[in-house]
């Protein structure tokens, strides 16, 4: 076995041990919850002892793996440069200046952009309607609060499920059309834009420092107002007292 094969074997073994350890821990927690005995220091100790072997193997493997020769992952698993049409299109669009093009080519590019705008618009409508429906359900005062949060969560899922299905169906349908439109525009832009030409005008050089200063002044004003009217006391109250359910102890 050569070094690459050893590294691959090691990484697979480590992955499996981590997954098994995680599943064992989760299984132990679920067992305690559904066993009816309730949580106590003793029951947790017994449950953890039952799954201790895979949980201990995991860090031992990790530590051993940092010995020379095993710590570097195999090269074939390292990330490579991803080719993504949408990103290439954005870069080409930044460099292109359509005002110098002939009418036919320019209208072809604009047509592709219009197509994608329509697809994006439709893609936005469905989630907006879904969010509006969800917001209406959430703020329908008594119903939401009377049902307690788990019940409300189930209600929200039932409400959102049709919108989600519709949205996924639309994405499956429109995705290939969108991708094809991107590729057509890339072909049009590549044929017309020489490398390095038509540099985009840099905007925001003067407005950005002013915007930063404005936002900083707002931030400092808010802090000062909150501080001198006692707002910090509520932060202190929450922070120095342990609300047990807020950290999941419930």
């Amino acid at each position, binding site marked *: 076995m050569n070094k690459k094969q050893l590294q691959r074997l090691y990484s697979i073994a480590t992955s499996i041990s981590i997954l098994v350890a995680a599943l064992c821990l989760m299984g132990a927690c679920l067992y305690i919850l559904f066993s009816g005995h309730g949580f106590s220091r003793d029951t947790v100790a017994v449950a953890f002892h039952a799954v201790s072997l895979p949980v201990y193997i995991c860090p031992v493997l990790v530590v051993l793996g940092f010995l020379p020769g095993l710590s570097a992952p195999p090269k074939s698993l390292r990330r490579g440069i991803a080719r993504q049409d949408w990103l290439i299109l954005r870069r080409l669009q930044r460099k292109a200046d359509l005002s110098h093009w002939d009418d036919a080519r320019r209208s072809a590019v604009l047509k592709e952009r219009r197509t994608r705008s329509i697809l994006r618009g439709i893609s936005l409508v469905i989630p907006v309607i879904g969010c509006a429906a969800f917001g209406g359900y959430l703020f329908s005062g008594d119903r939401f609060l009377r049902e307690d949060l788990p019940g409300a969560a189930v209600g929200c899922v039932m409400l959102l499920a049709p919108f989600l299905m519709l949205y996924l169906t639309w994405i499956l349908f429109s995705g290939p059309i969108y991708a094809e439109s991107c590729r057509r525009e890339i072909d049009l832009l590549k044929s017309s834009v020489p490398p390095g030409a038509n540099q*985009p005008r840099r905007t925001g050089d003067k407005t950005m420092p002013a915007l930063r200063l404005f936002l900083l002044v707002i931030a400092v004003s808010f802090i000062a107002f909150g501080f001198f*009217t006692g707002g910090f006391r509520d932060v202190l109250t929450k922070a120095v007292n342990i*609300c*047990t359910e807020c950290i999941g102890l*419930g």
Partner: protein
Amino acid sequence: MQLYFALLFNANLNGFSRGTIYHGSGKQFCVPGLNCYSCPGAVAACPLGSLQGAFSADRSTIFYVSGIILMYGVLLGRMICGWLCPFGLIQDLLYRIPTPKLKKGPLTRALSMLKYILLAVFVFLIPIAYAMKDIPLPAFCKYICPAGTLEGGLTLLANEVNAGWFSMLGPIFTWKFLLTVSILTGCVFVFRVFCRFLCPLGALYGLFNRVSCLGIRLDESKCTACGRCEGVCRVDIRQVGDRECISCGECVNVCPTKAISWKGGTIFQKANELAVGKTKNAAQATIQQRRFRLVTRSVAAVLMLAVLAMSLLHFNGDADALPSQGCEIGDLSISCPLEILTARGTDGRTIDPGRTGQLTIVNFWGTWCTPCVQELPYFDQIAREYRGTIAVVAIHTPLAGETAPAYIGKYYPESDILFALDRSADEAGLAGSCYTALGGRGTYPYTVILDENGVILHTVVSALDYEGLKDLVATCLSES
């Protein structure tokens, strides 16, 4: 740097050994990153938890917390995620474990929108909806945040001083434990699972990435669109410096045209990248620049180490920490005269919970505490059912006591509960309060049952439902 800031924000190392949290005034300020304030080591507040709590608090609190988050966002943007966040450090360390890794792609980019949904729903909508009904509910902290479970819940449970807390664990803890283990396991195989897909604080800071004073900047006039920066980046950016960028800086080194740089001046640049300026001799300028950078970095390192050392000394020598144990079951409770609280405030009358001459249920609560306000109706019902037999005393926390009269007037105007305010903490600190004297260790709600002689019969560190409370009262009545 991440390790440094993790240590700085969690400098109260004594808290881990004592099994309690820091109670000092440092917690009125927020740290930039996600650091649960229930972590025993935390010396300041979490901005996300404070934001959720602010919706049910006074209006000025919202301004205060929003101002802090806005300031951090404008100054640092998501550089906080890459350099300052303790939970980000945990994720980075887990990712270093050599296993097969999941590459970024369309799926991860789609998942990166999930954190905005969590921000809108769990940080804003749900807390605001509950706040309208005077119920403080930090929904993200309670149902999702793995930092709270890992840094707060598990570290406190691990201390044997808090062995009694295991009895309060139930479905919420199980859900959060499963979620935390899943996220930490995912961090081994996917870079920064929580930061990229789930963190609402990162989502907030990401909105300021373009305008932030520090971070990554792309000079489009030098960019040749080679794609190397996006290839080497491990998060789901569309362009260097956008809202997903955590300013880790890996793209700076690979850009062939040096189009990517750090905002904030030349301090991050290498000597041979800096402008020569007016000096004719380029080599001499390079040496000068290198010397300047060495001195600057040395001074900065010394200052940072000094700050860390001072923080560790200050926070670990804090005398306001809770004593390891107050009264226990079977002990005679210490006399604690408390001011009676009504809808019109205090009127000078006092009550001593251990000297009522009846079986007394003492409940420590706060208007800022969700389970406290949710269980108070049960105490009200019990007080009515057992009128004349038992006394129910509800003592509001020393802090935020000014909110209690209005709450009592609105929801319990004719209640049989005796509301009280513990002012002893104002003079003696939390360590000298009635809460601590009766065995409280910082958790709310906390219920103590005293017999007619003031001896402690039972203590409960979790919220109670009506049946549980009624069983407890019946047991105590039969015992006494």
